[in-house]
């Protein structure tokens, strides 16, 4: 018998709004409200609200907090300002990925990391055990159960959040955050997201999350705001070629293969996985996660084989119809010899090879706000 599914503070609001609820990473989450394609377009053209309260948050503080993050994550945390956010990964010694995450510097010696919902227990055990082994003076607290999270994404997001905030949110730059009040609730306002659109992620106290959600829906009516399910969250991130843990990256994939070399900073010093990653960099990266586009109508899905001249050269990790690009797109690991843009391959769908080619990514141009 499976363990009962957990519910976010917005569960009742989703049910009331007519969402279709599905199990996801141990949680009962809305997959769609009105339809995935309509919701996807709502985010690209106006603004959408996502309940991502299922995601995990850990605080780490103390004299050893920076050392802990430098040892555990691949990116260089030393240069991170208070108020700045960084995307990164946690690796095993063999270079496989424990999880991907964002790192927030809250104060001089205090950080917050945000991890994937399905990895919360695994990650917390990983970070605390590795710190204990190394006798690092860093205190970890799992604050997931008291932290709600709402993503507000789309070209109207800044206007909407700005209307309810007690501070000028236009001054918060991309991958920066600030404390403030939204709808009278103290939240952390982070200019981040997973859609390729401008927008914010609002970290709120669990019990006040619904108040923020309902206020955003109410205040955003004229902006065309709508609640958006996990279905559209997936197609939006796929069009950006953002990796999803469990689909595109996991303990068997290396950050270099996944195209995440930009968050691997060996120059910062020792970190878990560094030797394995550097050995792969020196020896050559055997396969690469690339974007492919089907040249005829067909949906490539996770696990489908990819062939070149009849020989298997890779595997699809994510795939769908991309509503904004109006094409059938996918991500796949391909042997490096077949990974160049323009390379022709076939995706095996129900025993039949369907033609595809490697294309430049992102599939859809991002509209994140780069300066402030």
């Amino acid at each position: 018998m499976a363990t009962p599914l957990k519910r976010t503070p917005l569960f009742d609001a989703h049910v009331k709004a007519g969402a279709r609820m599905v199990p996801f990473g141990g949680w009962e989450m809305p997959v769609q409200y009105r339809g995935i394609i309509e919701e996807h377009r709502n985010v690209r053209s106006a603004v959408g609200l996502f309940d991502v309260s299922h995601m995990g948050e850990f605080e780490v503080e103390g004299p050893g907090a920076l050392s802990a993050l430098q040892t555990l994550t691949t990116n260089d945390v030393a240069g991170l300002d208070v108020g700045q956010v960084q995307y990164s990964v946690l690796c095993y010694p063999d270079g496989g990925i424990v999880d991907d995450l964002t790192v927030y510097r809250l104060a001089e010696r205090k950080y917050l990391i945000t991890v994937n919902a399905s990895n919360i227990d695994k990650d917390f055990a990983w970070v605390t055990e590795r710190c204990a082994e190394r006798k690092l003076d860093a205190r970890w607290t799992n604050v997931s159960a008291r932290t709600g999270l709402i993503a507000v994404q789309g070209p109207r997001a800044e206007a909407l959040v700005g209307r309810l905030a007690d501070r000028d949110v236009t001054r918060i730059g991309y991958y920066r955050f600030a404390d403030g009040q939204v709808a009278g609730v103290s939240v952390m306002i982070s200019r981040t997201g997973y859609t390729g659109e401008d927008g914010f992620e609002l970290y709120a106290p669990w019990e006040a999350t619904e108040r923020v959600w309902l206020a955003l829906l109410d205040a955003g009516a004229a902006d065309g705001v709508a609640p958006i399910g996990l279905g559209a969250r997936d197609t939006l991130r796929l069009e950006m070629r953002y990796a999803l843990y469990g689909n595109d990256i996991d303990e068997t994939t290396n950050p270099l293969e996944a195209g995440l070399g930009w968050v691997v900073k060996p120059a910062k010093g020792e970190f878990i996985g560094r030797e394995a990653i550097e050995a792969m960099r020196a020896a050559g990266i055997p396969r690469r996660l690339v974007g492919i586009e089907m040249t005829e109508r067909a949906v490539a899905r996770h696990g489908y084989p990819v062939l070149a001249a009849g020989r298997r050269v890779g595997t699809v990790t994510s795939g769908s119809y991309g509503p904004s690009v109006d094409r059938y797109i996918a991500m796949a690991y391909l042997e490096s010899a077949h990974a160049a843009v323009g390379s022709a391959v076939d995706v095996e769908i129900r025993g039949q090879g369907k033609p595809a080619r490697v294309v430049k990514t992102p599939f859809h141009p991002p509209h994140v706000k780069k300066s402030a």
Partner: protein
Amino acid sequence: MSDIPADLRYTREHEWAKREGDRVRVGITAYAQEQLGDVVFVELPKKGSKVSAHQTFGVVESVKAVSDLFAPVSGEVTDVNGDLAQSPQIVNQDPYGRGWMLLVTPSSAGEFDQLLTAQQYQQFLAEGGH
């Protein structure tokens, strides 16, 4: 409750069948398209091919799911809805009309009468639909 036209017959796999002279028109029900969500791909057999009752004749894919299509009756496919290749969303918009999938000339007269009536299909859905 989903729309279940009284003049059609149904399968437990959520296809509908409509007798039109000596042929049978086939599609998926309103309930099926609601459960699938946005349809983005439909794969149908070629005109002239044979289908068998209770066997798969094609595939319908939504953003999230892949589902087999099951033939309500056995026979020869005399026409397919070519519009669905370019505009699969018609299945969502008009499942009993422009979203039809096949016209079949049945090879066995009795199979159609074995299909669920609208009332039986409604009952089947009320019991959970699977």
